[in-house]
């Protein structure tokens, strides 16, 4: 067939616009956001939210969900990160889900974050006393004791939990489990139907 002959292949040429676009995206500041939402407490609701994040390539740092005082509603706290444009899209897309009742970006104003962590540590010999002391310093509680181990319960913001993990001897940590954060707005800001 009469194909058109060409000397250069444009697909290999550097696309200046594309490159500029990429740089523009990289220059946008990525910020951490805490998004809180109320969603109908129905089967499949969680997968709609998590599916939305994976399908659109949004980050989830942590996600917690449980029913509220009104058993027909669940409250979800999602920690995510992205540029302002991305986070605007995240909240719009979440609002678009039929089962989502309300969405707020807690990080837009004063709010409180708390996370629960359980750490199982080896507690033998001199480490036993040291662990007890560290738990006290961080206002943790020892909730399980065996001859060789403790389980320490700790709540706080992410930074506090991180620093506890950093403060104890890494070799003594048997396992850790963290809940992901729960967040609530300060003062008069209330997320309710």
């Amino acid at each position, binding site marked *: *067939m009469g*194909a*058109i*002959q060409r000397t250069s292949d444009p697909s290999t040429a550097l696309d200046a*616009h594309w490159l500029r676009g990429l740089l523009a995206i990289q220059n946008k500041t990525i910020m951490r956001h805490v998004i809180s939402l109320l969603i109908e407490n129905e089967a*499949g609701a969680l997968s709609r939210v998590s599916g939305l994040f994976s*399908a659109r390539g949004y980050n989830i740092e942590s996600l917690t969900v449980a029913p509220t005082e009104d058993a027909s509603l669940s409250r979800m706290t999602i920690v995510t990160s992205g540029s302002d444009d991305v986070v605007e899209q995240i909240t719009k897309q979440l609002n678009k889900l*039929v089962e989502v009742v309300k969405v707020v970006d807690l990080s837009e104003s004063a709010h409180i974050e708390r996370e629960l962590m359980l750490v199982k540590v080896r507690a033998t010999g001199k480490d036993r006393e040291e662990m007890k002391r560290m738990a006290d310093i961080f206002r943790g509680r020892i909730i399980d004791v065996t001859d060789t181990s403790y389980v320490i319960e700790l709540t706080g913001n992410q930074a506090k939990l991180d620093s506890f993990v950093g403060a104890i001897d890494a070799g003594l940590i048997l396992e850790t489990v963290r809940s992901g954060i729960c967040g609530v707005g300060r003062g008069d800001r209330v997320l309710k139907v």
Partner: protein
Amino acid sequence: MVMTGAEIVIRCLQEEKVDYLFGYPGGAVLYIYDELFKQDKVRHVLVRHEQAAIHAADGYARSTEKVGVALVTSGPGATNAVTGIATAFCDSIPMVVISGQVPSAAIGQDAFQEVDTVGITRPCVKHNFLVRDVRDIAPTIKKAFYLAKTGRPGPVLVDIPKDITAQKCEFEYPQTVSIRSYSPVVKGHQGQIKKALQLLLEARRPMIYTGGGVVLGDAADKLTALARKLGFPCTNTLMGLGGYPATDPQFVGMLGMHGNYEANMGMHYCDVLLAVGARFDDRVIGSPDHFASEPRKIIHIDIDPSSISKRVKVDVPIVGDVGEVLGELLAQLEATSERPHQESLASWWKQIDEWRRRDCLKFTQGEGLIKPQYVIQKLWEVTAGEAFVTSDVGQHQMWAAQYYKFDKPRRWVNSGGLGTMGFGLPAAMGVQLAHPGSPVACVTGEGSIQMNIQELSTCKQFRLPIKVILLNNGYLGMVRQWQELFHGNRYSESYMDALPDFPKLAAAYGHVGLRVDKPGDVEGALREAFKQKNDLVFLDFQVDATENVYPMVQGGKGLTDMILSAEDL
């Protein structure tokens, strides 16, 4: 009245005034089919593949203001439907799909013909439901129709386990529906509309850019009235064709990857852009950064807040039903004596007319091979622009969009968002059923038509006199075009050897088939075909295989960076 779940399903469809149900039976929906058998209000159209049921319901919905409805069985019935559902989702088509599911107790047991239908379809539906109690069937179907057609429309799937359709309960169809987590905005913000009008009145180089939202929102009349009153140029997206009359002098053609030169240039160099029911997608504006490189004020009217400022930052966002908002804009315009700056507008039109003179869609039909563009041009002439045209996906789709001038909305039916080959013929079935007696053409390619060619059988059974306009170039033309332009003429797997004899194939299905290979025969064949009011006619046009779709904006490039013809290469 106490009824079985299956009876309730059918009664709900009757309550929703469903006249056609497109479907395919199977184990999990046997009770529902049994109830269908016992009544004659809802007419069932038996397709030959579930994908076609969804496309047919889709074509039915696009060409009317109604919700398309389909019924499929569990497992493969549902998975076959997925492409159709995703097609409808990408183009925001109101649709309700009812799927059978294995009995409740078998769910999760890897039962025969079991798939997680709700899970599989979740990313490509507006919403979906798994019914777990017979008492939930009626309220769920009510919700499904409500969700499908309100707000930004879309497909809604209702998955019903077989045992639920056999159980009984009292039937009462809910008269109203309220979903606390769902309340789409209808009216636009007054202040924003005022701001928008001010911008429009101050514009020196305005452009109106409209998409599928104007068609689906039945706002074409209001758009046309507004555009004419302002005297502004108007361009439509592929999905928006027919939203503004194509033969109107203010229409500058389709824009985008294969858009008109004047439309793309106008879009790029305007100073105020009114975007209505459109979403600035990659096939429309090319590179968003290139688009942003030219300063302009953008007003964006859309029912879906997430479409606003998604790819392009806008200055005046207006969330609401496009018909409502355009109506309000028009009312405010009529209430004021202010009018756009006529001198600037005149010089802008002068510029647009200069771009127009490039005549970017020109082609020459010689004595030799049939040009595909010529076939579409003749199709438009022969049908006096009054036909419903469905298309598949590829070069023929672009030529149909470029050369068939749609003056009315809902006449152009194509898969814009997902780009589903195999859409055209089944969609045409839905269109023809919705508009008996109207001319319906399915413009297709030899690649696309083979993706759902089995539906020729459905067309025979239901006596659908569709005219299949096959632009047969022997190649997967759009793939071949990209390979020619961007892959050094290496036609990797884009040539189909051993094509069937299409006219004979059509004849085997009981239709009339005809091959046309001379330019002089094109018009006569089309005239003859459209004279056949009761028969499907399959016209196999042997067209020039080397023809490419121009203008063309290469993926990721700016809108003004157009290849206008082979000479530009």
